[in-house]
């Protein structure tokens, strides 16, 4: 059920197993945190991939709002507006 504040969420390949294969889903939230609450409720298993047990966005998960990394905005408190496009990118990282 999404009325006002509908946000388009781009789902990366490794997380599509939680969205029945969908590459883009519609959700809602006035902030990134609210959006993540709704995504976690709507897509079981997805929330744990994005935030840790303390509710913090995981270090190796990157979230973009209209192409801007939220770490350069207001983090989880970054505001969202109807029609915004949110993209989730798990890190590609490692070491020797």
């Amino acid at each position, binding site marked *: 059920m999404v009325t006002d504040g509908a946000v388009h969420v781009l789902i*990366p*390949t490794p997380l599509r197993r939680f969205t029945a294969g969908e590459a883009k889903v519609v959700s809602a939230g006035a902030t990134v945190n609210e959006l993540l609450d709704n995504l976690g409720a709507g897509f079981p298993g997805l929330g744990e991939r994005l935030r840790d047990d303390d509710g913090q966005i995981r270090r190796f998960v990157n979230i973009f709002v209209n192409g801007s990394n939220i770490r350069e905005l207001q983090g989880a408190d970054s505001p969202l507006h109807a029609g915004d496009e949110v*993209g989730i990118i798990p*890190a590609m*990282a490692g070491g020797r």
Partner: protein
Amino acid sequence: MEPAADDLVFALPAAMRQEIIDHARQESPRECCGLISGVKEHARRLYRLTNLAVGNSLYEIDPREIYELEFREMPNHGTEVLAIYHSHPASPAYPSATDLALAFWPEAYYLICSLVDPVAPEIRGFRLAEGRVREATILFEEYCG
């Protein structure tokens, strides 16, 4: 170490193999990184990407570059992430504990290029998922289009 899994075979075009080695040598002693897009199991294009990690023992691909590829460039070309590569300038071509802990793309092949033997670089490929390393057989082949 487990033997190569029978069901994991990755055909790496010779030109891409050379590109990874060239990239690794240019970045050394830092780790290089990038990805290969593909259609199903067929490699299509190699993208050199930016390593944002500090120091010489880690890599973290610029997430903005991944965003552009994953949500714009590759969908426009009908491709997906087929492989993620990085170099081990001074260690073997085998996933480290860090590589395994930070493997968030279980459907991709993780290619590692070791420069331990500077005249004979080695590239090996793996699937990394749920704490498990499964080695793929890499077929080095001429570009098949």
